[in-house]
C-alpha cells in the first residue's frame, strides 16, 4: 500500500509512468495549489518505484 500526500503532489506523472502494475492514477479534482494529484488504486505490490522517483517526496510506502 502507498500513501500519497495530496497537498504536496504536483501531478508530474512520474510515479504513474513508473508503476509496473498501473495502480496509480491522476485524480479529476485539484488540490489547494491547483494541481491534479495522483491517487492510488488496488493492486500495489510494494515495489517502491513510485516513492523512489517522486521528486517532491510525497509518497510513503506502507508495508502490510
Amino acid at each position: 500500500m502507498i500513501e500519497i500526500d495530496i497537498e504536496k503532489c504536483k501531478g508530474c506523472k512520474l510515479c504513474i509512468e513508473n508503476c509496473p502494475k498501473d495502480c496509480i492514477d491522476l485524480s479529476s479534482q485539484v488540490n489547494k495549489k491547483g494541481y491534479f494529484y495522483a491517487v492510488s488504486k488496488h493492486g500495489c505490490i510494494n515495489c517502491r518505484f513510485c516513492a523512489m522517483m517522486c521528486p517532491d517526496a510525497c509518497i510513503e510506502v506502507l508495508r502490510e
Partner: protein
Amino acid sequence: MQGYLSLLKIKRLPTTWCPGCGNGLVIKALIQVMESNNLNKKNTVIVSGIGCVGRTTGYLKLDSIHTLHGRAIPVAEGIKTANPKLNVFVVSGDGDLLAIGGNHLLHASRRKTNIKVICVNNRIYGMTGGQASPATPKKTVTTTTPKGNEFEEINTQAIVTSNKNFFARSTVFHLDHLKKMIKKSLENKDFSFIEVISNCYPGYGKKLGFTSNYEMLMDFKKKFENQKNKSILKKNELGFLK
C-alpha cells in the same frame, strides 16, 4: 515518515519547480546520502548560486547561503578555509558554475580546496526561458540559436581532471549511481566535481521533440552507459575519474 525527510523543510513543500523537474530528485539523493553518512546541521553547510537549482538552499534544514550569480564556489572556499571541520557542498546549475562562474571553477580546481560541487546540468538557461548555455550541445535549437548551436559544449572534465581532482558524471534517472558518486566524493580529500545531467522539459525538451519529462528520463536510460576506460569519460558514459 522516512528518516531523511527530517532534513527537509516540510512546510515549504511543494517546491516551486515545474512538475517532474530533476532538481527534486537531486535534492532527494543528496539528503539520503547525508542521512546515511551522519551529516547534519552541525557539520554541514550548503551554498548555492542563482538559477532554478539555487532554490535548493531554501528547502533544507541546514546552514545555507544563496549567493550572487556565479559566486557560489568562492563563498564555499571561504567557509572551508575559516572552519576546515565543516563539510561544504555547492549545488548549482551549468549556467551559474560554467559560464558566469567559470573563472572561479578554474581556480578552485587549481587550489584543490576540499569542497563538493554538484553541478545540475540541464544544458540550458532554464529559468530565463531556454537560452543556449556553455553546456548546450552542437546543432541544438534553442531560443537564442534558432538555426542550431554553432559551438561545441564546454569540456568540464578536462578542466577538473587536469589538476588531478575528482570528477564524476551521473544523471537524474540513475539515482543509485548518483548516490554512489556523492558517497565517493565524500571519501575524496581534494576538490570534487559531480556533473548531474538533468531534464528541463519546458526549456529544452520541447524543442527537441519530447512530449513529457518521463520521456526525457527514458532517453537518459537509452543514451548513457557505464564507463569502460578508467582514464577518460566519453560524452555518453557515466562514472568517475580520480
